[in-house]
């Protein structure tokens, strides 16, 4: 049976900080926690495939128990099984330690029920690092295709699949063997509005809970959490304030005069001649 695995992270909804259209003020009222948007699209793609190939989708997430809400949402969107990897010792993980925990869990899941495809988001919007997917692929020694914008073909018999991969300059059509790990763009599949029966099932669903010692996966203390994280936050600060230049009010001096004065300054900085010199 086709088996897809999706790694999902819960993130604060940084992109959806609302700006009040009337006042231009930030509406900060409880910035909610959401499923990382790229992961939602990855999940949607996995669910589309499982429906087509008549298979199963398992989702995993590493984080505190509040991440259960996101796993339930994954069930709502069509996943069959949700596993939360949670342990006090897992806390404080950087991307390297995160990829270790996910990889160990995936190994255990794979042993129970072989996995054909692993779906990750392109990146998590809280850190934008895009490192965990490649990290897990390396640990499991799997082929990886990043920035997947569509799945062309999955052939379980030949154990091959074909994808569109988007880079800055072009799209590649790329073929790999299975199992394969993907990191997904939003285009890969639209996130569906779940049918009511799926929602009701998800509301009653209790995700499985795997900790360091509880569950079929094994974890080595040295690799998890802050202990297994080579990077250390050394200090935090606020960005320095730049020095502001002159402000010319066109309502006071007139538009033409303001423009003239501004261009004179560009010229004085030696920039305009360079640009116009090239243009003339």
């Amino acid at each position, binding site marked *: 049976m086709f088996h897809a695995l999706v790694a999902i992270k819960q993130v604060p909804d940084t992109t959806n900080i609302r700006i*009040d259209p*009337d*006042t231009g*003020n*930030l*509406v*900060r*009222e*409880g910035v*909610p926690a959401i499923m990382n948007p790229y992961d939602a699209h990855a999940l949607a793609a996995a669910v589309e495939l499982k429906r087509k190939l008549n298979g199963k989708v398992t989702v995993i997430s590493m984080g505190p128990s509040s991440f259960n809400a996101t796993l339930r949402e994954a069930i709502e969107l069509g996943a069959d099984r949700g596993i939360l990897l949670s342990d006090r010792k897992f806390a404080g993980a950087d991307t390297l330690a995160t990829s270790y925990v996910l990889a160990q869990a995936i190994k255990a899941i794979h042993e129970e029920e072989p996995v054909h495809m692993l779906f990750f988001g392109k990146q998590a919007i809280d850190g934008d690092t895009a490192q965990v997917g490649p990290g897990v692929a390396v640990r499991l020694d799997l082929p990886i295709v990043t920035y997947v914008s569509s799945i062309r073909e999955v052939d379980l018999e030949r154990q091959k699949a074909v994808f569109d991969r988007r880079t800055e300059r072009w799209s590649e059509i790329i073929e790999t063997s299975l199992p394969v790990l993907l990191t997904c763009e939003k285009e890969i599949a639209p996130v569906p*509005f*779940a*049918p*009511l*029966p799926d*929602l*009701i099932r998800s*509301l009653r669903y209790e995700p499985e809970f795997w900790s360091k010692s509880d569950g079929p996966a094994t974890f080595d203390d040295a690799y998890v959490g802050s202990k297994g994280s080579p990077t250390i936050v050394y200090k935090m600060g606020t960005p320095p304030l730049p020095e502001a230049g002159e402000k010319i009010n066109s309502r006071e001096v007139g538009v033409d005069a303001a423009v003239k004065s501004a261009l004179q300054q560009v010229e004085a900085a030696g920039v305009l001649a360079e640009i116009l010199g090239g243009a003339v």
Partner: protein
Amino acid sequence: MNNYDNSGKITFDAIVIGAGLAGSAAAMIMAREGLNVALIERGNKPGAKNYFGGAIYTHAIEEVLPGFMDLKPPFERPVTEAGFWFLSKDGMMRASVQGGKLEKEPYDAYVTLRAAFDPWWAEQAQAAGAFLIPKTTVIDFIRDDDGHGQVIGVVTDRPQGEIYAPVVIICEGVNNLLTQKLELIGRDLEPAHTALAFKQVISLSPQLVNSRFGLPDNSHGLAVSVVGDVSLGLPGMGFVYTNKGSVSVGLGVMLDVLAEYRLKPYEILERYLKHPAIAPLVEGGQLLEYGAHLIPEGGWRDMPDVYTGGVMVAGDAASMVNALHWEGTNMAMIAGKLAAETAIEAHSRGDFSAKTLSRYEDRLRERFILQDLRQYRNFSKFLEQHPEFMEVYPAFLNDALGGFFSAYGKPKRQLFQEILGALTDRRGIFKAAGDIVSMGRAVMGW
């Protein structure tokens, strides 16, 4: 618990639409009696989109959920000072009550924020056994095709989104789309009877809240209505509530007025916040949230039929708000409870006809809800016809009392004449007397 009947339909014993104050109360009462209740909420979670001032009244909470204080409700502060502030152009007169009954536990009211209160309130319904279905909007009803058109379920916006139940309680709040759909009321909200309330929550340290509002400590709080120079002299009313580490400041203005004068809500609010008497109270605070919400102020005049076969309506959806006192939460909760009790009764009889559910209206009548709404029925009409109440009198009171409390070295007799003069300048003396009479009528139901 299985919600599927033999034919695979999703079925419950009762459906409540809207996990607001009325809805969760209704769900709680029914679930406690063992009914299998679906509580449907369109927001991501209860309270996500809800706003109010506001103060919430303990008598109503206690009635629905006895011993609720043990369940750690997310209150900000008890209301230990309440009253009116009258703003003139540049001054303010305060008429508030503090101490006495307000100081005694159990407190009559608490200030709270809906984003915290509603989830807690819905949790109590869930704890009683109600099944909360979030992120789902009810868009229509399923009617029996036996000729009576009795409501037997709802249609939601989701695929395969029908849910069946013999009784549905509509607690959809102020946007009465569903009551209209059932033709319980024949029209949209009337702009002239509906206020748009908008507010800001401004953060201040608890110490600053205490010192600026004259509160001895964090277990004291203030809830006042502000009238006069709040809304450019137009019919409207402001409010100030102290939270633990923030202040809620806002005002409501009737929709028709906003439209007629092409006013932008935030401009009025900005102006109000810059008022010389208000600005120092919030100075240096950070804007935490900005929100707007409608209030149905038509009260009695705008009530829909509150029941029909298989359906009851409670809370704002039934226009159960006392505009003068900013009271809506208590009516919503009690009405939710009364509707729930009627539903339980209907279940025990196995009869959900309009006739059985008409007991709901009887229950409302027996309680303060219909009585209060009747009593205040003319109040908002009064405000419409007497804009001077919002403008002239607060200014007058300010001048008058300002004079009264300063010595000026004048004989008191002259002072009183001046005060009277100040009023009659603004409004003819007979008119003034008439105003007072009609105001009294509006409030007291003379």
